[in-house]
């Protein structure tokens, strides 16, 4: 039927229900010579009479329609795991603390509520989360142990992290010291950089998803919305990207302007969320704070945040400018990825008027980092003088994220090596060797040797352009 025929049919239908004719076919024949239209009107009138109470009561009780049944109950045994307690609830699943009875260790289990468990798209999302997190091996990203299925219940088993989320700290009114702030920023940027180097966008970075462990290590949780590059998806056998067009993902308070405008998220969207998160962590205030979600979205789109210095006069200009750049409205104005962001973040020990000790309130973190590095000493090689600066330049120019991170890492390893052999304090060594251009990534490894290895073997890296 053409639009014109539909318009005509609608007109005739409306006239007929207003004033029902005794003989519909005759009445139609008198008023319309198009048999397609006449047949449509007759059919619709017949169904109008048959429809009974169809759609006359609004959709039922939402409490019933939206009800969720927890997948597991405390005390229940699921495969080799004994469920202890529900410890969290996300947009798409419930998280339990459980005991792996074979290895006698505590794990976290994430599963879908019973109502969502049979849904193929929800299952695919959970699988994708497991794959995204499992593709990353970084101390700042929660380790995935398994993706299992028992009696139709699909669940992810990960390391159990004891600690508090940044959200807890913010709500609690804890204002971090400058040293702690830098440390948190660097750890978070480093973990995010490892995801970005693998082409993975987190897309839901927010204080609730960032945890500080009891020994001071920052961990990113919940890769439930993470997106892998297309090639990786195809390799994993995923039929399609689960989130269909127009579907809503993310958490409005941490969405970037482009997400609010309905444009696709990319690495720079995570950079924006990083900026919002750090601003909020530093000041206890959301940079675009407003009484309602909608007003906040309006401010994300149009307003500039209050200058950070107004709340935190103690921050270095370098840190303030990094956070400001993350918060730029236009993605092009931000860092291209967390790798660049990490490179630009000031170092705890060299920034500000006073020297901030690396081992401070969060000293455990720095120690943990160092020990982690020592595990990778096989990659340590002394670098010829000046070579590390060359590597940083190379890194900046590298075509792929993996390549860039690799260069930065190599330079860092060289410095670490020099520091250990000469016994000079690392900062001193660097300043001496480097002049005014410090190598900024030294504290936190962006990526472990597997990816460095890829770059060394010359496997193609991931260009920014294909990451969206």
């Amino acid at each position, binding site marked *: 039927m053409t639009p014109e025929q539909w318009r005509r049919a609608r007109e005739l239908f409306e006239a007929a229900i207003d004033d029902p004719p005794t003989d519909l076919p005759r009445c139609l024949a008198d008023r319309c010579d198009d048999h397609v239209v006449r047949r449509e009107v007759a059919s619709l009138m017949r*169904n109008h009479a*048959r429809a009974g109470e169809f759609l006359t009561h609004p*959709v039922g009780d939402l*409490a019933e329609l939206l009800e969720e049944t927890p997948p597991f109950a405390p005390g229940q045994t699921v495969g080799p795991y004994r469920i202890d307690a529900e410890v969290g609830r996300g947009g798409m699943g419930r998280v339990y603390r459980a005991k792996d009875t074979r290895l006698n260790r505590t794990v976290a289990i994430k599963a879908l509520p019973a109502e969502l468990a049979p849904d193929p798209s929800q299952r695919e999302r959970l699988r994708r989360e497991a794959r995204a997190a499992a593709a990353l091996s970084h101390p700042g990203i929660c380790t995935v142990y398994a993706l299992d299925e028992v009696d139709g219940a699909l669940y992810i088993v990960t390391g159990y992290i004891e600690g508090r989320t940044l959200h807890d700290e913010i709500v609690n009114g804890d204002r971090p010291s400058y040293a702690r702030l830098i440390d948190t920023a660097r750890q978070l940027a480093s973990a995010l950089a490892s995801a970005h180097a693998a082409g993975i966008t987190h897309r839901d970075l927010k204080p609730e998803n960032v945890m500080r462990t009891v020994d001071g290590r920052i961990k990113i949780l919940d890769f439930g919305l993470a997106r892998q590059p297309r090639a990786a998806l195809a390799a994993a056998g995923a039929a399609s990207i689960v989130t269909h067009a127009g579907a*809503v993902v993310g958490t409005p308070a941490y969405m970037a302007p482009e997400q609010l*405008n*309905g444009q696709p998220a990319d690495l720079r969207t995570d950079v924006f969320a990083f900026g919002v998160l750090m601003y909020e962590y530093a000041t206890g205030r959301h940079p675009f704070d407003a009484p309602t979600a*909608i*007003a906040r979205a309006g401010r994300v789109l149009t307003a500039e945040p209050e200058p950070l210095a107004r709340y935190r006069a103690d921050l270095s200009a370098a840190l303030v400018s990094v956070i400001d750049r993350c918060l730029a409205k236009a993605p092009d104005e931000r860092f291209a990825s967390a790798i660049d962001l990490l490179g630009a973040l000031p170092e705890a020990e060299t920034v500000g008027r006073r020297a901030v000790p690396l081992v401070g309130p969060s000293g455990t973190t720095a120690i943990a980092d160092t020990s982690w590095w020592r595990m990778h000493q096989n990659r340590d090689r002394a670098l010829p003088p000046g070579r590390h600066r060359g590597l940083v330049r190379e890194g900046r120019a590298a075509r792929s994220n993996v390549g860039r991170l690799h260069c930065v890492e190599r330079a860092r390893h060289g410095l670490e090596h020099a520091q250990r052999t000469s016994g000079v304090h690392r900062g001193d060594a660097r300043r001496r060797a480097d002049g005014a251009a410090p190598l900024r990534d030294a504290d936190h490894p962006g990526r472990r040797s597997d990816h460095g290895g890829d770059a060394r073997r010359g496997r193609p890296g991931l260009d920014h352009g294909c990451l969206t």
Partner: protein
Amino acid sequence: MTQAVTTAPSNPGDAHHLAPIVYDELRRLARTYMRRERPGQTLEATALVHEAFLRLADAGTPWTDRRHFLGIAARSMRQILVERARARGAQKRWAGLDPVSMTAALERASAGDAALPAIDEALTRLEQVDPEQARIVELRYFIGLSVEESAEALNISPATLKRRWALARAWLFRELSGDPA
């Protein structure tokens, strides 16, 4: 300092980019309601949408238009409920019915959530024929607005809305009961 590059929405009157927030707010409210839920109490979509509007629409926000809000809220509610029904295996339950029981369930409006995905698909087809028809069904069925409220939301007269609502019901009923056109 941050470059003041403002990417304001291309058309200030167009609030579609705010759909994610409405959707999120509705889901959040629904969850809050359910935690407070007492036995025998039902949660009506209309109440939820009104509360969401009160919460979201305050002075100085991009919302200037209640009509626009209602349209987006109705669409979001449709998306939430249909997603959930799909997740509960509604399609399978619906497909398991024979045509006679199907038609009977539609007539008596007794299908529960089993018919929701089928209704949603038919509605998508109707939308291609006549987008306004789908809007009417979203407002009337998915958020339970009255004839007068729906008419106001669509800026048409209540009498016109009533006739077009009848048309939408007839069209969808035919589609779902398998009556040959």
